[in-house]
């Protein structure tokens, strides 16, 4: 892989390259409404709270977290597919979060998304050819050799161009995901948001799609935001990783560093919970098992949001230290581990030993 210029520092100030897409203090609240005729607003789900991210050119930024942590909402906010509650998204220096639908259109060509479920994201009544041609038609590019473009796209993603007149249901899951990728590529985007693109696929099929995405990035110079719950896939494909928990980024780091020196207790638990396909290592492994479940995002805990499940909070901290976790929200800063983490008592730990 051509390694993109990964800035040593994760903040844009310290690096030479400018981020292609950056988010500042994104907040998204969804209203919770009462039942009955008059749907009064009775609360708010704090889906995304003060998230800032930078995506650099030719880079893959992995956004990981468990269900309900706000990673998909964040990816949609970044593309202005849903309006932000507050905060802003800059694409090549321009704030796109306040643009209207029609103002957004020229930017849509450069910002594309691939969805998780290849069964739900393709219109079953359109042929594959029409599905891939649709973005070209909308942007008025089909007249100029569109037919050939669609055939080329099919070939690039590893499908037979002769199959353009078939319907999505005639394809397997992996093939459908390739159709979704071809559709996203049609307008030659600069940034692609990949929202769990391989989660619905079997492992032997998944590997092919991952390879395809890697190769496309190399050849076409794309920037990826790779949203996933699967840390082993993220480790394979991403250059940098941001870990989310309950609407907040709790740790960001270059991918190698995240896996060799995870500083936030949540990241550590997440890494240690992933089963390794290696029986001997798996038996000998240290495992951090979290207790309890993710708290309700309507009423998140005060201070550090992870404290209700944090093994460090429960077993290691003194009363005074605990008070700090309850009262003071930890900032996402470097506490001496070489990357940013949002824990007052961050401590780097190596949880995966690399093969010699």
């Amino acid at each position, binding site marked *: 892989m051509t390694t993109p210029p990964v800035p040593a520092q994760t903040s844009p100030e310290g690096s030479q390259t400018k981020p292609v897409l950056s988010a500042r203090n994104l907040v998204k609240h969804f209203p919770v409404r009462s039942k009955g005729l008059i749907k009064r607003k009775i609360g708010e789900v704090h889906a995304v709270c003060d998230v800032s991210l930078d995506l650099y050119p030719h880079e893959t930024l992995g956004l990981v977290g468990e269900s309900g942590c706000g990673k998909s909402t964040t990816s949609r906010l970044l593309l202005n597919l849903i309006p932000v509650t507050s905060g802003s998204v800059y694409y090549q220096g321009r704030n796109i979060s306040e643009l209207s639908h029609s103002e957004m259109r020229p930017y849509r060509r450069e910002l594309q998304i691939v969805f998780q479920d290849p069964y739900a994201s393709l219109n079953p009544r359109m042929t594959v050819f029409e599905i891939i041609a649709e973005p070209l038609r909308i942007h008025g590019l089909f007249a100029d050799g569109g037919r050939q473009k669609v055939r080329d796209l099919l070939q*690039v993603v590893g499908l037979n161009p002769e199959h353009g007149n078939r319907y999505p249901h005639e394809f397997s899951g992996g093939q459908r995901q390739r159709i979704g990728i071809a559709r996203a590529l049609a307008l030659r985007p600069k940034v692609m948001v990949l929202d769990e693109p391989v989660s619905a696929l079997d*492992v032997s099929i998944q590997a*092919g799609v991952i390879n395809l995405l890697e190769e496309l990035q190399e050849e076409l110079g794309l920037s990826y935001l790779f949203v996933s719950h699967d840390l082993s896939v993220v*480790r394979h494909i991403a250059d940098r990783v941001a870990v989310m928990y309950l609407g907040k980024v709790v740790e960001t780091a270059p991918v190698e560093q995240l896996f060799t020196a995870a500083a936030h207790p949540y990241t550590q638990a997440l890494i240690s919970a992933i089963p*390794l396909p290696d029986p001997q290592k798996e038996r000998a492994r240290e495992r*951090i*098992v979290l*207790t309890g479940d993710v708290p309700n995002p309507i009423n998140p805990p005060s201070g550090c949001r992870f404290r209700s499940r944090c093994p460090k909070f429960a077993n290691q901290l003194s009363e005074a230290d605990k008070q700090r976790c309850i009262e003071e929200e930890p900032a996402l800063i470097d506490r001496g581990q070489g990357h940013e983490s949002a824990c007052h008592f961050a401590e780097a730990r190596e949880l995966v030993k690399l093969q010699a």
Partner: protein
Amino acid sequence: MTTSDYRNEPEIAISGPPTEARDSDVVLEVDNLTVTFPTEDGLVKAVRGVSYQVRRGEALGIVGESGSGKSVTSLAVMGLLPKTARITGSARVLGEEVIGLDDAALSKIRGKRISMIFQDPLTSLNPVYTVGYQLAEAVLVHNDVSKQAAEKRAVELLEIVGIPYPEQRVHAYPHELSGGMRQRVVIAIAMANDPDVIIADEPTTALDVTVQAQVLSALETARKETGAALVLITHDLGVIAGHVDRVNVMYAGKLVESGSVDEIFYRPQMPYTLGLLGSLPRMDEARGARLTPILGTPPSLVNLPPGCPFAPRCPIAKPQCREEEPALLPINESGHSTACHFSAELEGAKPGDLFKPIAVDADALSELEEQS
């Protein structure tokens, strides 16, 4: 909290020549089981002759991709397939034949001798009864005890699987619990009558990784308490690696490789197993290497072509593979078996030796690049 050493000590040697099969240690024996579903398109041969044994206290993993028949095999054993399914062969639980038993006879075995945990805990629990009621029901069906005793046992069971405040939680309805908790309730129900075999069908697939770790440790606790053998069905090779003694790999309705967990992961000798291992992105290996996917898709089980079902995707397939389907044959004394004509050639093979990291049509890609 660390749970590094959670495995049951197997009471007997795991491996042994298959001739010593019919000893009393075998708790579940599946013999040449086939399952066929008649459909409009023709007969779907979902399971095509599967044989395996599970010994007392042992953990057996069954891996395979969607549609490989791994779930159907165990549903047949539990007698849970629809009436349209045609089942042949035999499955014996503690020596007693279960294929062909009527529902009343099966109900005496199900839950008591053999129990099952399903993928989706929300659909395996009844939404209109409290979890305590459903636990007590499982106890009362097989034991002549008072209601109070059954309810007391329900609280105990919830405590064993690690549910906090079990005295209060017995009064909760399934929808009031999170996914991980529900699955632990299902595990508690499965272990309620000290079964000899627990079949877990993708027990953690719908769960997040941190919750998966909780549920798997609850499953280990349940096994320790009951001494039950475990049949763990999953597509996740990572889960298999940490939780079983032996592994069966399924493809297109048949076992294609069977052996101890170390043999399957470190010395696989069937191209499909090698392909699966090479497809996995791994956290414990250096980055930068491309994955080696298996090209193509699994065959349709309606019109299986003659020969090895993996041949169309196999990089070492030879004409013989397209004519004659290989049987599952032992390749050493320890019980490691493969269904491949050329297993012997694959000794010490690595996934990268067979499969290539192919991703895209390079010519087409450069053409696309030129256009822009």
